């Protein structure tokens, strides 16, 4: 009877609840941001049919080869706009990178 009682009471016990929590942080990428550009300023020379001779003469006097790469006024406008578009894209990409870093790299250096 005793053995039977012990046997039966041990069968229907309440199980202890186990909660497992193990968070494994992702390895950090830690890529350095690209170094900002440091560009050289360039010099534009405007040549018209009226000043062409004078321009080339000045170049020779300054020891510069009397040769110029030319753009029409329309192409100059396109070049300026193209550069502005590249600049905008660069800014957006750079800011996007900053936002990702801000979001995924919290202040204490941990990653989300």
């Amino acid at each position, binding site marked *: *009877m*005793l053995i039977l*009682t*012990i046997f039966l*009471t*041990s069968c229907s*016990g*309440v*199980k*202890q*609840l186990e*909660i497992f*929590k193990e968070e494994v942080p992702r390895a950090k990428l830690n890529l350095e*941001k*690209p*170094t*900002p*550009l*440091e*560009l*050289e*300023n*360039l*010099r*534009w*020379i*405007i040549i*018209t049919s*009226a*000043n062409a001779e004078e321009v080339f003469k000045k170049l020779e006097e300054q020891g510069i080869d009397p040769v110029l790469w030319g753009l*029409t*006024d*329309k192409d*100059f*406008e396109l070049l*300026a*706009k193209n*550069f*502005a*578009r*590249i*600049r*905008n894209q*660069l*800014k*957006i990409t*750079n*800011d*996007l990178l900053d*936002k990702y870093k*801000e*979001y995924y790299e919290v202040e204490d250096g941990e990653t*989300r």
Partner: protein
Amino acid sequence: MRLFLIGIIITSLLGAGAYVIKLQRDNGILKANAIKLESAVADQKQLIENQKKEFEEILTANKKMNELVSVLKKDLEDLDKRFNKKNRDVGKLAIQRTESIERITNGASVLATRCIEIASGSPLTEKELNATKKSEINSECPSIANPNYIPY
């Protein structure tokens, strides 16, 4: 017969005792489970709070990026206006006032070069940060070069 009855009583008492001990043990486990569940609920609440915070951060980041795209678009429109304002023909102007247009072009080229540097992550100078007047700003890209300038 008497011994048999005593045996039954003793067995029953021992059985009851063992059952009470089991109940006490189960009660202890249930209490521990309740504490763990409360802790799990608290963790879940914290998780939901964190998710809300992250969602707000995502919204803010998206808003800022959209604002940036808008101001950059405006810079591009302003550049277009500078070339074509009131049917302006830069080519004809350059023929009429060659030296003046050359000087303006070179000045704008220096500013545009600086704009690329800023866009690539170069920090703003004190002068750029403090510019609030039209005469002080980088007219090629005021939206990124002069954050304190309000167009007037």
